[in-house]
């Protein structure tokens, strides 16, 4: 009799717990239910072919998978130094009284909606780059092996992988930065004092701290990569939306899983195979994200902590 009241409390809270568990099924179940027959029948085509023509009943989606990975790779690569810099700046280098403000500004980067970044990229950032930086890049690397393919294209456009990558890099930076900043601020002070006691400079202290929190940096970078992988609106608005075969090129137009879904799902509602193919691509996207999170857990011992913190 004594524990009855508490059992009632646990039952009430349990409803919330069960519904949270249900939430993940609400996401996964409809996606799997509406794609597994397609995946069984045409899954191989979807992940190996690059012929995408729903009208012709061709559903080769490898270029979208590669496009997602390509965009994720480059934006994460560019976001990493930004995130580390912002973390060091906001927790160590900026004037003490302004630290809260700078930290808040970094968080603000994450608060602006994806679709707003997309619109800014579409109207302002992309056109500006296409008329200034991109032609310079193209001519600068035209003779260089390997790099020339990255920047070779028939026609420079404001909407291309590069524009999507650059905007995405900015968008995912705060996620990595928040985790790195948290670890940075938790570094034992006496370790830093030891660096100074040995005659080290500020830079030595920063280097020491960064090497001490390597694992957290990695966790932050992986989480940021996960965000890049699933990022949708900005990418769709900036990537150029070409369904042609994937080329490892930055100034080319392209597509990702998320962009093809946003672009085609409306019309796909009329064509079951088409909508199932797009749903299957979403399932593949979630699988890719899960692999990333799994690797994160394997590689970084601080990962789970960082996940919750992010």
């Amino acid at each position, binding site marked *: *009799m*004594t*524990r009855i*009241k*508490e059992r009632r409390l646990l039952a009430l809270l349990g409803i919330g717990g069960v519904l949270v568990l249900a939430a993940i099924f609400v996401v996964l179940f409809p996606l799997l239910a509406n794609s597994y027959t397609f995946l069984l029948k045409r899954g191989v085509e979807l992940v190996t072919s690059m012929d995408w023509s729903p009208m012709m009943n061709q559903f080769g989606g490898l270029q979208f998978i590669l496009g997602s990975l390509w965009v994720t790779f480059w934006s994460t690569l560019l976001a990493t130094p930004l995130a580390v810099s912002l973390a060091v700046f906001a927790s160590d280098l900026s004037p003490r009284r302004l630290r809260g403000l700078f930290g808040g500004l970094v968080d603000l980067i994450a608060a602006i909606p994806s679709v707003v970044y997309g619109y800014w990229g579409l109207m302002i950032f992309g056109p500006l780059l296409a008329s200034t930086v991109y032609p310079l890049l193209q001519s600068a690397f035209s003779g260089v092996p390997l790099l020339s393919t990255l920047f070779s294209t028939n026609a420079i456009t404001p909407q291309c992988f590069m524009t999507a990558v650059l905007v995405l890099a900015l968008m995912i930076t705060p996620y990595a930065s928040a985790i790195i900043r948290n670890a940075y601020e938790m570094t034992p002070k006496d370790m830093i004092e030891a660096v100074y006691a040995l005659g080290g400079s500020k830079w030595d202290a920063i280097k020491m701290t960064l090497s001490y929190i390597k694992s957290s940096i990695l966790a932050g970078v992986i989480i940021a990569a996960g965000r890049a992988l699933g990022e949708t609106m900005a990418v769709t608005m900036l990537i150029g939306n070409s369904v042609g075969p994937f080329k490892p090129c930055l100034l080319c137009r392209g597509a990702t899983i998320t962009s093809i879904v946003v672009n085609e799902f409306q019309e796909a509602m009329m064509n079951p195979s088409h909508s199932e193919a797009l749903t299957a691509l979403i399932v593949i996207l979630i699988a890719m994200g899960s692999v990333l999170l799994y690797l994160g857990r394997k590689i970084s011992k601080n990962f789970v902590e960082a996940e919750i913190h992010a």
Partner: protein
Amino acid sequence: MSSDIILKIEKLKVKISGKEILKGIDLEVPRGSIFAIMGPSGSGKSTLLRAINRLWDLYPDVEVEGKILLEGRDVYQMDPHELRKMVGMVFQRPNPFPHMSIFDNVAIGPKMHKMVKSKEELERLVEWSLKRAYLWDEVKDDLKRKAGRLSGGQQQRLCIARAIALKPKVLLMDEPTSALDVVSTKRIEENIVELKKEFTVLIVTHNPQQAARISDYVAFIYDGKVVEVGPTSEIFTRPKHELTEKYVLGKV
């Protein structure tokens, strides 16, 4: 010992995460006394207190065995909320509800247990409790102040007031001065001696001098067992056990 025993503990064993902390405790606490439980840290003193008001109920990895009788009733057969109303507790560190006013901190218990019928009665009870805790004079002009803004010593006296507002039979005190400075400690010790008039006080302390200063009876606990128990004057002047002697002389 007096024949009027308010609290009786029989063969009490407590396991935390499978580790036996209390290994069979037998104690009898006489009504209207100050009963001190002393022993080095880690000996299981606090564990014992938390078994009496069943705070361990909330922790799934704690197992309690044995019997605790309050006024002859087995506390583990009682409603825990009724039990905790009859057994007040003051903790090691002051733990008022920091976001509530001084008044509300004291009033919340009586209100939740529906002990008062009118606002006036509640106000009288709060005043009574704060006076018993020697806090009234310092706070009477500003009862709306947040408890979190009081000093550490004041916070602890507020916690005493909060506990006695429920008019408990027994007051458990878990090293109530360990987080306080000397002056605050002295005030609280004087307070405890005063409280004896109305309550039975069971106080845990790791400081034998404190036990000697304020208690009528003392039990010396070591490694989860009662080494020696008896009237304070006897234990401190003629300890029977070598370990007790070492402890009261500060050698353990």
